[in-house]
């Protein structure tokens, strides 16, 4: 499917933010020694890549707001709802397991990637229930 202007802007923003994320993660890894104490300086440096991940969320919000095609917007929002539901279910389920058993501890860092994988599940749900997966933006 041809990309609409909102999708093109979204892709440009995500590419720029991804490059910023990779660069800031590399910089933080270089500046902060392994097992460093949480001082104001190390925390400040470590939080710089989080600005880029917050940027991903901003780019997704802009994408939804800028989408003029209401049907495509509905497909995208359904994908996000499925992803959010799956992530909350997995995170709370695993959290309860961690409370009561000695299952491996999962770092909170993985919540966002799991949500993104949930978008793919959302596409599948759209395909099965409506017949349209939605754009792969």
């Amino acid at each position: 499917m041809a990309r609409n202007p909102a999708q093109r802007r979204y892709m440009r923003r995500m590419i720029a933010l991804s490059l910023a994320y990779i660069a800031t993660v590399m910089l933080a890894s270089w500046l902060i020694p392994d097992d460093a104490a949480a001082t104001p300086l190390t925390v400040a440096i470590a939080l710089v890549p989080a600005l880029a991940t917050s940027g991903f969320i901003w780019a997704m919000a802009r994408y939804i707001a800028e989408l003029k095609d209401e049907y495509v917007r509905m497909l995208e929002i359904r994908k996000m709802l499925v992803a959010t539901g799956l992530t909350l279910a997995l995170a709370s389920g695993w959290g309860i397991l961690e409370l009561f058993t000695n299952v491996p501890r999962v770092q909170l860092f993985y919540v966002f990637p799991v949500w993104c994988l949930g978008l793919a599940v959302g596409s599948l749900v759209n395909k099965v229930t409506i017949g349209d997966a939605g754009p792969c933006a």
Partner: protein
Amino acid sequence: MKNRLKVLRAERDWSQGDLAERLEVSRQSVNAIETGKYDPSLPLAFRIADLFGLPIEEIFLKD
């Protein structure tokens, strides 16, 4: 909701792509509305009605 979009489009010899272009939506949207998989919002329904020069109730019908 049922609709007469396919018939109205055929009368004008428009493809789904032609109608999508006129409505400034994706062909995917036109197909979803035409097949009854998606009911358009009131503003989009008015745009469709304006395009065909018909009242909304002559395009979209109660089930």
